[in-house]
């Protein structure tokens, strides 16, 4: 288990718990379908891997970005893996070439639309 996600999840959950008691360890664990003790292990960065569906459920539960939580777990969404597997060399090249590119260059590549002030 990547230690980053445990700390991140715990901090986020506790922040939510301050405003809403439904974000206790027990209730969150039950809502995503794991044992409270297991979520506790995750939060303490002990060896407690979460499957992709559980990570996504946890992200939804905490109102976090799914890709961010997946990345913190050292994983890539399965649908993205499928895309890469279809053309592995091409996507490996593409990602390597973008590694040091500034955000602006990446956004231009995907024709990202900037939202302004209105």
């Amino acid at each position, binding site marked *: 288990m990547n230690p980053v996600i445990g700390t991140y999840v715990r901090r986020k959950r506790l922040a939510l718990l301050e405003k809403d008691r439904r974000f206790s360890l027990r209730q969150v664990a039950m809502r995503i379908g794991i044992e409270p003790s297991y979520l506790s292990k995750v939060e303490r960065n002990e060896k407690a891997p979460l499957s992709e569906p559980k990570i996504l459920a946890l992200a*939804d539960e905490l109102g976090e*970005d799914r890709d961010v939580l997946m990345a913190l777990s050292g994983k890539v*969404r399965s649908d993205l893996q499928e895309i890469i597997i279809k053309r592995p060399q091409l996507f490996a090249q593409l990602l390597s070439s973008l590694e040091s590119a500034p955000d602006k260059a990446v956004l231009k590549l995907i024709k*990202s639309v*900037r*939202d*302004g*002030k209105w």
Partner: protein
Amino acid sequence: MVFLEDGKLVFFFPSVHPQARLEASFVRAIKVPQDGRAYAQPVQKDCLPIALVDDHAQRLPPAWIEHGGVMLPVERSDALYICLESVPIFDTGVAYPFAVKAGAGKISAFSGEPWDESRFDKPDYAVVTGRFWIDGFCGEDGKVSQFVAQPLGMGHTLEEKSRPGPYWGGIQIAVYPMRPQAWKELAMFSAPRPHIVAEQQAHFGPDMGLAPGGTISQNIAQDPFGSQAWDCLTKARCFVHLADAAQWERLIGATPC
């Protein structure tokens, strides 16, 4: 995340669902007569090309840069509609639902009231699950006044007729995906496909706005999911500038299709 793909504006919410994606295209249509009668949805003429504002920033008015978004060319008196499509999710066959607010000159095309992105307690949005058209400004009795492009500054657009300046022109779109939890509950339920609507030269700049034109009949449905279903925090929005087609070549160095 909003981006352009194959001439369409794509609102994509991978953090909500890997396939939560709504595509928008802007279609020039046959203009219906303004004779008091209600007509069926007008025939499509062609899809309007879309360009990123940031790709042509050096030639555009400063206000356009500030608004960001995209732009497309329209002729004076062109009728147009917005085509929205949420494609079916692979493993369910059900299109991911979105709530969509649309406005012209920051006046809601659905309610005729000032643009408001923060609330869902008014009927100023449509629920899109599948394909959906916004043909014009919503009126009473399910009738819609067709969107007709007019130069901003001539007093013809709905915003100029409705309120004092400053005027915004263009089209504004805000898209809200269904909350993941609500989507799970919807699961395999085949959602209804409500058909709400909306809508809208001696001149001073490239800015165009939308005016109400002839009347189109459409069915208007209520939100079948309820306002709590929509994820206000994960919205994406876009300002769509309407550019005078006569100035399009100067703006981007290309001829409108």
